[in-house]
């Protein structure tokens, strides 16, 4: 086996591994030939619209659908009552056995628990007609009091969203390492802090959408859906419907961004196959943006309490962390995951030998919460880094210095953190590899930290407020359990890779082709990558958790390794030759002694049809498939450093400079990795300075469109300076760690640190992650602190 990390396959001249080559995906996207769900049109296709609750919490007394059904052009109208008996609730995939059954329903039953909850579905000749008819559905509501904040939901005497549970806490998970009580009892100092994390989310530019088409011959249904994990959708949707898994084929065509929002199973993915089957015509639903804000999962919202035992020199000896996640009205597919990541990862790169954690999932009358890029890491990093800043300021220590004093050194790795990642089996957290202090020093050097302090002083004297912030994260990436790939070479030499990775902008076809091309010694353009279709890719886990480059990519290359073994076996018999007499050169296997005597992969594929082995896997086709089981999670890490300017007069926060020193192991394609990091930082800037999903006191969402929910535009993102460190992980033969989420993960901690640093002259302390909009900043600084205006000349 040729598995040297990043090395060329036997004989290939230049490896693709490590090169920022152009993407295979771009041409069709640039020409307007992408194929997203909304672009697909089938004969007889009907459109669905969904009737949604305008109340955060209400009992449904009655639903009248007669006039909607009678509306011209309407094919059918269904309500929760029509399907309550036949459909199971939507699954939640990360539950502890003791979790309460706060499951989402495809359509609401007698009670709605958030604005946007689906109540009925209308299918009509087109979307315009379906929406007209949806307005004719009459619902009698009896409004109930709404619970919105964690504080309200956890208060003694609070109403319970699910009265049977007797609590709004629907899951608890706890773990402990070392002896926290002893460390706290003997600490030089004890710090107690509360932190809060606001609600914001991924907002992919393409909303969700589904299209289902039933085959009248077989009864099988094809479902196109904008998802990150089509195989998971197949398994879950058939489970909810009570169908055999083989009845549904799920296709994720081009997907216009995901960020965790599309790493969930949604009711519309169940309704479309059900109604397409009933009506005998294709049914499409394309979410509009106003729906997206209430009907697609939100992210982040948590309250934290931490208690830290600290020595006089700034070393933290123990940490106790309690974290409550506001999961909204019911479990989404991965509502508990953010809490699990907090519990496993809040200590980041810092030793902190004694540790205790408790994480709660709490229901409220908001849209269900799922993972958003980084899952729980950004929240955990925010809390840890704020705590370090607080201790550093208190002890008069430099912010970089306190981090170095607590940081694990390379000699301490691998480091068993004596905790696990939530409910996952075999998920003990063991940091695998890296050099954290070097990474931090590189980030500090990137923006010339000491020089900045002088600049900051000069600026302050001139009435300008600059600040610098640092954050450091260690992030669990490259999750298993496995990824699948299958590789074909046919008799014309065509090479096709089928992968269980299911991308939505990551350039996965390109990176996977780079890996296969290196192994086979062929040109990267010779490889066609097929993904996102359960009909042709036998198995798959999908794209989330910074896993596809590392796990899917490894599976792809290992399939090429395996295919070469089969080819070698065949060549040995055909020539005949002994194994040690053979070698590979540019996709061809030949005698070491005589390069003329040998076969191309195409010739071997052709030979496998006739004169080859009787047990050849397929006539005229060389095939290999691999299920690469991940032996352990790979821990990527980075240091982020941000310089901001806060305009005291206007309250605007401007990010002036931003640096990232990061290590995601071996880099397959630096351009793609750079794009992931910069895009992630931009989302972090958005979440920290602009974005918030806001509700009024009655639980109605105030941000229901891109006019109200401000995403960053080009002018909000400064140049982002990158340094790549490359420490291979031992968990795959090519040393690749995940890179998809880190840009986001480090940003809130660094940015809020910088904002607080800028506002130091005002004595501002910040224990939340924003967003730091102008009104918020002005409130922080206070009126008195605003510069005096020169008196106007009297008119």
């Amino acid at each position, binding site marked *: 086996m040729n598995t040297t990390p990043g090395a060329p396959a036997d004989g290939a001249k230049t490896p693709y591994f490590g090169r920022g080559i152009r993407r295979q995906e771009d041409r069709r996207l640039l020409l307007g030939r992408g194929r997203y769900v909304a672009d697909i049109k089938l004969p007889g296709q009907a459109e669905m619209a969904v009737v949604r609750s305008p109340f955060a919490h209400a009992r449904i007394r009655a639903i009248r659908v007669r006039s909607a059904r009678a509306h011209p052009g309407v094919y059918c109208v269904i309500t929760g009552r029509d399907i309550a008996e036949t459909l199971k609730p939507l699954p939640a995939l990360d539950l502890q056995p003791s979790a309460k059954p706060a499951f989402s329903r495809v359509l609401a039953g007698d009670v709605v628990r958030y604005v946007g909850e689906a109540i009925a579905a209308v299918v009509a000749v087109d979307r315009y007609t379906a929406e007209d008819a949806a307005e004719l559905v009459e619902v009698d509501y009896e409004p109930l009091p709404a619970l919105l904040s964690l504080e309200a939901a956890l208060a003694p005497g609070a109403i319970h969203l699910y009265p049977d549970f007797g609590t709004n806490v629907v899951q608890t998970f706890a773990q402990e390492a070392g002896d926290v009580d002893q460390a706290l009892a003997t600490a030089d100092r004890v710090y107690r802090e509360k932190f809060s994390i606001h609600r914001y989310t991924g907002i992919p530019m393409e909303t969700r959408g589904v299209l289902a088409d039933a085959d009248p011959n077989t009864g099988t249904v094809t479902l196109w859906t904008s998802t990150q994990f089509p195989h998971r959708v197949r398994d879950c949707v058939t489970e909810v419907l009570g169908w055999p898994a083989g009845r549904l084929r799920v296709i994720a065509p081009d997907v216009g961004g995901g960020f965790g929002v599309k790493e969930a199973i949604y009711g519309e993915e169940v309704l479309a196959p059900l109604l397409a089957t009933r009506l005998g015509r294709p049914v499409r639903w394309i979410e509009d943006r106003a729906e997206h804000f209430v009907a697609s999962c939100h992210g982040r919202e948590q309250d934290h309490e931490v208690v830290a035992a600290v020595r006089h020199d700034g070393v933290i000896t123990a940490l106790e962390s309690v974290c409550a996640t506001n999961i909204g009205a019911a479990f989404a597919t991965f509502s508990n995951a953010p809490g699990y990541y907090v519990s496993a990862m809040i200590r980041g790169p810092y030793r902190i030998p004694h540790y205790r954690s408790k994480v709660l999932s709490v229901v409220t009358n908001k849209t269900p919460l799922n993972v958003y890029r980084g899952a729980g890491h950004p929240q955990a990093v925010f809390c840890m880094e704020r705590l370090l800043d607080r201790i550093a300021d208190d002890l008069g220590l430099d912010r970089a210095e306190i981090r170095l004093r607590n940081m694990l050194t390379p000699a301490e790795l691998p480091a068993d953190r004596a905790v696990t990642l939530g409910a996952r089996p075999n998920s003990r957290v063991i940091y695998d590899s890296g050099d954290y202090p070097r990474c931090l020093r590189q980030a500090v050097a990137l923006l010339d930290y000491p020089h900045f302090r002088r600049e900051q002083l000069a600026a302050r004297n001139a009435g300008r407020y600059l600040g610098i912030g640092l954050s450091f994260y260690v992030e669990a990436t490259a999750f298993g359990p496995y990824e699948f790939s299958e590789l074909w070479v046919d008799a014309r030499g065509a090479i096709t890779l089928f992968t269980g990775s299911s991308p939505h902008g990551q350039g996965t076809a390109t990176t996977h082709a780079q890996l296969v091309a290196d192994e086979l010694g062929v040109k990267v353009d010779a490889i066609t990558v097929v993904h996102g279709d359960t009909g042709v890719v036998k198995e798959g886990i999908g794209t989330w958790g910074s896993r596809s480059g590392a796990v899917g990519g490894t599976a792809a290359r290992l399939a090429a390794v395996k295919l070469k073994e089969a080819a070698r076996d065949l060549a040995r018999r055909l020539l005949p030759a002994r194994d040690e007499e053979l070698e590979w050169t540019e996709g061809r296997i030949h005698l070491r002694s005589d390069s003329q005597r040998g076969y191309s992969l195409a010739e071997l594929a052709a030979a496998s049809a006739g004169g080859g082995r009787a047990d050849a896997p397929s006539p005229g086709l060389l095939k290999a498939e691999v299920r690469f089981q991940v032996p352990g999670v790979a821990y990527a890490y980075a240091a982020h450093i941000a310089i901001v300017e806060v305009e005291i007069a206007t309250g605007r926060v401007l990010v002036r400079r931003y640096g990232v020193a990061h290590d995601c192991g071996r880099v397959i394609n630096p351009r793609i990795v750079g794009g992931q990091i*910069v895009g992630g930082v931009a989302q972090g800037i958005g979440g920290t300075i602009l974005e918030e999903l806001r509700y009024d006191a009655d639980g109605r969402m105030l941000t229901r469109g891109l006019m109200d929910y401000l995403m960053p535009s080009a002018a909000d993102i400064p140049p982002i300076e990158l340094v790549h460190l490359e420490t291979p992980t031992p968990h795959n033969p090519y040393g690749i760690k995940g890179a998809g989420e880190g840009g986001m993960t480090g940003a809130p901690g660094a940015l809020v640190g910088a904002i607080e640093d800028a506002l130091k002259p005002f004595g501002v302390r910040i224990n939340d992650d924003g967003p730091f909009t102008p009104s918020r900043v002005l409130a922080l600084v206070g009126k008195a602190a605003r510069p005096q205006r020169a008196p106007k000349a009297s008119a």
Partner: protein
Amino acid sequence: MSQRHSLILEVNGQMRNALVAPRLLLCDFLREDLELTGTHVGCQVGACGACTVLLDGKPVRSCLLFALQAEGRAIRTVEALGTEQALHPVQEAFEEQHGLQCGFCTPGILITVAHFLESHPEPTDEEIMAVLAGHLCRCTGYRNILAAVRAAATQIARDKAAASPRPPG
């Protein structure tokens, strides 16, 4: 269902004839009736710019216009910007600079930028930022889009210089 009206317009150089409902949006007409699905719809309120097309040579949000408002006028969409064999220089630059990831916002940005560079052959970064401010992209963080616009401007200038006759002497 509402009365349909006759609509005649030019789309990507071809005369098109259709009967459309008065409330049909231009973006839906292009995507559903003409099957030009390169124009994407991201927000329905003119905020994201994904649905941008040229109407008589000027960028417009096709989600904010009724199809009938394009009566007698000329539309150009991303499908007419370049071809597989000959990408438009802006398309070329986006590919070269990794200016797209999921590609959903890209067609609208390409339309706007191609139009912008015709009137601003040597744009400053501030001018580029100002024109990009009308578009949202969630994947790239914009920095590579900025680089692509700069690169496209340079390439267009180079192409022009190569095409124009040499000055005498």
